[in-house]
């Protein structure tokens, strides 16, 4: 990470740490999205929503490493909203369909797509509008279509509940875009998801480490017991070895590397959730305590943008 990237991370962290994201997330889950949208506008001011958008559409043309940094922070603070869709997938998908960049001319519906780009990308870059989409079969539902644009068409139909109450899922009715197997936009979604999962996992580890030092049982902090230490040491190991895969995948953008990153980050986040809940005890099993916000978001993202099984299979086929 270069000094500018360190600075970017630290600005995002400062903003989110000062924003009381847990309250914003609970309001978002209850249907009051305004505080969350205000926070997204602040994230846009720091450039988050413009990362994957070229300069000609008012974007930052940032690297995938910048994207990973942003998503780690979004995960770390359990930010609600269609982040992967708005910041990574939709812009990248629009761009990949432009006639000059499309790998397959058949999918480049030139006039449609060019107008899509000029119509939407500047609005995404500025943070004026968030975006979402469904990508069946991997993402059968659109996230938060009630507050986000659907540039690839369709109308949100029946809503369904997610395990993460901040994710408002809807069926998308009528004709809708279906992406290809090795689509770059899909991979960027998987990479962003992997980064978000490592951030979620890190936050759950941090919360757990803090909690076991203050919770006293048998006359000592429970963090002194080896059984507790070893749970948390394993979480630290899993995160330490997932993160380099996420960053090296951002460098190479090779599908096999992104698959490896997604599998490792999912496993690390899952372990952080399970072990974190265990060392907290019943307090973390409540909605009132913040840990639950991270736990259910991780659970929702584990199968998102390619299940672990799908990514393992793709990886082996590519070797």
């Amino acid at each position: 990470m270069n000094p500018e990237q360190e600075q970017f991370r630290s600005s995002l962290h400062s903003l989110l740490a000062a924003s009381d994201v847990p309250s914003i997330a609970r309001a978002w889950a209850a249907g009051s999205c305004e505080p969350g949208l205000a926070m997204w506008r602040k994230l846009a001011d720091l450039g988050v929503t413009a990362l994957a958008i070229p300069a000609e559409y008012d974007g930052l043309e940032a690297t995938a490493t910048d994207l990973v940094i942003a998503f780690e922070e979004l995960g770390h603070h359990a930010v609600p909203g269609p982040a992967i869709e708005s910041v990574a997938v939709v812009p990248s998908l629009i761009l990949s369909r432009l006639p000059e960049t499309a790998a397959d001319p058949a999918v480049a519906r030139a006039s449609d797509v060019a107008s899509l780009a000029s119509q939407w990308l500047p609005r995404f870059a500025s943070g004026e509008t968030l975006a979402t989409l469904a990508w069946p079969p991997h993402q059968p539902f659109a996230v938060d279509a009630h507050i986000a644009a659907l540039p690839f068409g369709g109308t949100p139909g029946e809503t369904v509940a997610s395990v993460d109450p901040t994710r408002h899922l809807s069926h998308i009715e009528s004709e809708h875009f279906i992406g290809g197997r090795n689509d770059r936009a899909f991979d960027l979604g998987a990479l962003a998801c992997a980064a978000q999962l490592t951030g979620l996992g890190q936050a759950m580890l941090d919360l757990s480490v803090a909690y076991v030092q203050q919770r006293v049982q048998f006359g000592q902090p429970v963090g002194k017991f080896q059984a507790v230490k070893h749970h948390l040491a394993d979480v630290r190991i899993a995160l330490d070895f997932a993160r380099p895969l996420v960053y090296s995948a951002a460098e190479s953008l090779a599908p096999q590397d992104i698959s490896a990153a997604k599998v490792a980050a999912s496993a690390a986040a899952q372990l952080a959730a399970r072990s974190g809940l265990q060392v907290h005890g019943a307090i973390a099993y409540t909605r009132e305590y913040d840990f639950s916000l991270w736990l259910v978001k991780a659970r929702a993202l584990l199968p998102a943008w390619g299940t672990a099984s799908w990514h393992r299979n793709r990886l082996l086929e590519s070797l």
Partner: protein
Amino acid sequence: MDRLSYDAAAGTTPSATASAGEARGDAARGVTPGFRDEVRAFLSEHAPHGLPSLDTAEGNLLHREWERQLYDARLAAVSWPAEFGGRDASLMDWLTFEEEYWAADAPIRVGQNGLFLLAPTLFAHGTAEQLARHLPGMARADDVWAQAWSEPEAGSDLAAIRSAATKVDGGWTLHGQKTWSSRAAFADKAFGLFRSSGERHRGLTYVMFELRQPGVTVRPIEQLNGETGFAEIFLDGAFVADEDVIGEPGEGWKIAMGTASHERGLSLRSPGRFVATARRLIALWREHGSDPLLRDRVADCWIKAHAYQQHTFQTVARLNAGGHLGAESSAGKVFWSELDIALHETALDVLGPSAELANRWTDGYLFSLAGTIYAGTNEVQRNVIAERLLGLPR
């Protein structure tokens, strides 16, 4: 005993020169241009295959001969200064050498205790005279080194060491018993900690001593695999000259902890070893019909081997920027030791009923089982991670 015969390297033979992808990665990481190709060409021409185990008398000699060939090609210890037989290569070049070495399925390094554990300690704490006297023989495998740490009553609790170093004129005499001493059955020399005073940590002195001298009795111990990979060492008045104390007397614990982080970390188990094994596992799985029930485990082995590799690249970048190897090496030790077992257990499951037959995977499996015990048990490492990386109370 019959060996199951199959070509575990099928489909994994590297091309004669680095692929475009490898060359790009090497350039990005600052690997010396042409180095990978040179190593690959040398190993493909010279590396012997199927040597008897280095823990047999015959195999030990043949492994030493192979190390001499490496030394003559200045490949025995590429990161060392040229005056000791190295080529002043960067850590990244050394990792590249290791990748090629394991991909070529070249013999296990008989000199590894000296090369990977003692040498880093000597570079950090030894005198110029010690370096000049010990390193060239170590690199040529004229001297094979054994470790002498554990004792019957000092395992995980290493500071409980009782074997004594007593000051005499011009040096020290050693009394006591060491055990689980790797390579001691066929080694020439040993290094380890001895008690020179009563203070638990500050009473330990780090010495190097000849195994072939009066007052030393080595009793080989047969391991799980039937070979004598380690031994007991009985000491009854063996002599160590003052010149063979590393650092000052009483500083041994501090110095040894530095060695321990090398042992746990990249110098003992470079990622090339696991990346090459993961590739062989995938080839084996395909050869045996690509059982979908084992697919996820096979993929996870590859993913973890690459995670260890990328993590190591990150560590090297940190070291190059002036950082040092600290408690993070405990996380690496747990990770690689569990990965090694997973690689071999998965391979044995791929082999199915024929996995019972002694073969390279059963050999590797039995070897891997020791990994969670030596170099500090994984339980001790998890305590270190929890206390020193996470800050939990002791």
